[in-house]
């Protein structure tokens, strides 16, 4: 079966097609090696990154923007969101500080994306 995948790695958004039976040999439409890897991984096990905010006290704003600093399995997105919701940090925070390590045992940390 032929499958069409839109690459999400960069703004080009390449349309990549592959045969689900023989993906390695049939994958076409990518314009960089990362695109090829993305399409193959999307077929086997889709991964995503997400961003959100956590509560912060003693800062100029009530919310601190955060992100996962690596890929997480797509099916864990909403579970990770629930973990992020439990976090509350105190100012000052530096960009890159870990606010929640190894979220749900994924090996990925939730980190601050700005100073506050």
């Amino acid at each position, binding site marked *: 079966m032929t499958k069409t995948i*839109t690459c999400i790695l960069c703004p080009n958004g390449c349309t990549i097609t592959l045969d689900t039976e023989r993906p390695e040999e049939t994958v076409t439409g990518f314009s960089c090696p990362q695109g090829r890897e993305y399409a193959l991984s999307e077929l086997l096990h889709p991964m995503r990154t997400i961003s959100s905010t956590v509560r912060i006290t003693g800062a100029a704003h009530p919310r601190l*923007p955060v992100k996962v600093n690596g890929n997480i399995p797509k099916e864990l997105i909403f579970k990770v969101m629930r973990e992020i919701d439990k976090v509350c940090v105190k100012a000052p925070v530096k960009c890159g500080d870990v606010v929640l390590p190894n979220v749900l045992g994924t090996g990925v940390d939730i980190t601050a994306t700005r100073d506050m």
Partner: protein
Amino acid sequence: MYYNVVVIGGGPAGLAAAEEAARDGAGSVLILERDRELGGILNQCIHSGFGLHYFKEQLTGPEYAQRFIDRLSGTGIDVKTDTMVLNITPDKKIYAVSSKDGYMCIEAGAIVLAMGCRERTRGAISIPGERPSGVFTAGAAQRYLNIEGYMCGKKVLILGSGDIGLIMARRMTLEGAEVKAVVELMPYSNGLKRNIAQCLNDYDIPLYLSHTVTDIRGKTRLEQAVVSEVDEHFVPIPGTETVFDVDTLLLSVGLIPENEVSKTAGVEIDRRTNGAVVSEDMMTGVEGIFACGNVLHVHDLVDFVTHEAEKAGKGAAEYIKNKGVPGGEGRVTRLLNGQFVGYTVPQKVHTERVDKFIEVLFRVKNVVNNAVVLVKAGDDVLMSTKRQQMLPAEMEKLILPKKVFDAAAGRDIEITVVKEDEAK
């Protein structure tokens, strides 16, 4: 108070312009920012996807801003936040007000306009119906959610499939809202393909193309939004109405460059871009006043804003160092818009100042497949380049080498797009 270069706006454009001006030896540089902190709209764009061109890595909006803010320290650039510019005069006096400094007049050797843009509202697109609460611009909702920490609704419909609309569809979904659909007037989306994939398809949010909102119902809070299909002239087709029970309607229906103070300075505005008419160094029609970023024309990617702002900052520094326009005005070549071309930036080029090449950014007005971009002077084709697909939503870049201007020999240059079979 006098500064060699004053930058109006401390978002991505203003930050890059100020930094580049200082690096190029402009001397004293001041950034005026109306918000309480630098970074502009990037602060609320907490999603990833910025910086791939400029930093060669994926950053979130706040991270992208943070890098520029960090780079300011040690440059000697002064910053005034919470400061609103009210008026700029053609002789480069800036009148501004803040609660700390009160009313002030700042004289500038050169000015960089970097005020960004604002969102079109319900009024701008005349959606009929009642006037309940619950109708927001997508960017306002983004600010409430990501900076203030308020969810503005639970059952959401989004009008407009530009990137802000798509990003907010995902963001509201992640925070527990039910996003019923994204509705788009045009027969194609105006957002990036990857945002359709990762913001809508990932969460099974339907996209209705060639549809629009034709009625808004609700006494105090929004209760229902009516969506109709439109014909090829964008007229709603009777009998196609679908009623959505929603408490929130987000509008992502276009951006307008904020040029109010540009106009007080006498800067000529291009009605195609709603931004200033500029030359290749980003100088407006008023000598010593430059413009860059979304106040000049609305960009797709912040990376391109940074690149353009650096040109404006460099232009301002050169203007200061040369005590005027380097080499004088000289001969000016206008860039004319041919078939399918909506606008170009710059709109004019100082021919004698072209060193090796200049970059021209432009947008097409329609979707064009198998396109050929022709650069012409009169009937002579000076250059041609193929594009597989051109979309109004995607800004195009064209490099015009010096030899094109030599070949034009003083004639205006037209940029036109034809279909491949017509080109033969």
